[in-house]
């Protein structure tokens, strides 16, 4: 996949510096993506301290083995968020009891704090977020619902099929169609 933007190129340079043991580069990546990574983890595990622990583990893993991120497999941001998401999903599936306790609690409130320099440039972040919102809004509601249950609630396709009373095959096909649509909307614009 081609480098989409200067941000991507800058991230890749930072990861290369991390591979050389550059702490400043490591801190920069953490400041830039730690908050959004924490948001992803917190949405799943519903506890701030656990979310932060997951993010820290993901970054420590990068520090130990920066080669785990391979430039030819996409942007650093996507790789990091995928890593954090998978870790968070694993966490809630391992600790079902903890999840049940947290299930009654409302999701963490949306943070209004200005991310400032700690996240990707704010204007670009807003533009990106707006683009994603539009792409999600254009999905048929049935497809959007399933993707949201999977990504934001960490539910498997089997669980979703049970909860919605749908055949598993239907959930799988809606997942596939929804992601294909998103791919077309989000990736074609930058290629």
């Amino acid at each position: 996949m081609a480098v989409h933007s200067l941000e991507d190129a800058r991230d890749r340079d930072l990861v290369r510096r991390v591979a050389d043991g550059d702490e400043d580069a490591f801190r920069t990546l953490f400041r830039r993506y730690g908050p959004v990574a924490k948001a992803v983890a917190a949405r799943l595990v519903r506890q701030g301290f656990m979310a932060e622990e997951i993010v820290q583990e993901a970054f420590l893993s990068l520090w130990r083995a920066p080669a785990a991120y391979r430039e030819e497999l996409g942007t650093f941001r996507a790789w990091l968020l995928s890593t954090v998401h998978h870790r968070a999903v694993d966490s809630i599936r391992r600790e079902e009891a903890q999840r049940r306790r947290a299930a009654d609690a409302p999701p963490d409130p949306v943070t209004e704090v200005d991310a400032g320099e700690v996240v990707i440039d704010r204007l670009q972040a807003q533009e990106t977020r707006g683009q994603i919102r539009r792409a999600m809004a254009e999905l048929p509601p049935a497809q959007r619902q399933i993707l949201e249950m999977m990504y934001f609630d960490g539910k498997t396709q089997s669980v979703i099929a049970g909860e919605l009373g749908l055949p598993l095959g239907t959930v799988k096909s809606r997942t596939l169609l929804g992601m294909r649509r998103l791919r077309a909307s989000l990736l074609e614009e930058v290629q």
Partner: protein
Amino acid sequence: MSSRLPHDELETLIVADAVGGLEDAEQERLARLMASHGPDCAECRRLVTEYTEVAGQIGLLLEPEPLSAGAEDALVTAARAQEPSEIEARRGWRAARPWIAVVAVAAAVAIVAGVVGYALAPNQPGLRTITLQGTVPGRVSLIYQPGQSDAVLVAAGLPDPGEGTVYELWYQPSAGARMRPAGVFTPTDGSAVAPARVGSSFVVVAVTIEPGPDGSPQPTSNPIFSASV
């Protein structure tokens, strides 16, 4: 390759995996399918890359959450405490003594010339070379400077350590002390030139095969190369 591969089925699994929707058994099935399909399949790589990107963008819908005070410093402190660390070795490789770079070049030349273990750094005063005796084919040598922890490991003719495993170098600081990790390495075509951290003094060095990619904090198998100083 893709003509004989069930890409539709793979895509269904890859998509679900990207958004975390697979059960453990399905994840294993995906891994098996992709392995049997061929790790070099460009279409599979493209699907994984693009759907990972899409999933990552879904995550951007969430408002970033501020990290707790001190999280950054705590992370860096934890990173510094990662011992053994490839990073430490890398840092030593790039930033430490110039002799390492000189030795590395000499070692690479020596490997090409097939003379690993012999006079690797003849023009570097104060350096010593120790050749480890092995129970498997291949040669392993360590170039070090007494009193300094930076070293360079040079190997040639080594067998592949096996899937999911790496070679790990160890040193014993003094007689009776426990073995300390000095770095991991994976040979390419049987050869390796890798930075190592052996401590300022040691009496034994050894190599074992350990789980990858980071190796083990303590040896979990018998040494296949070793030497006493």
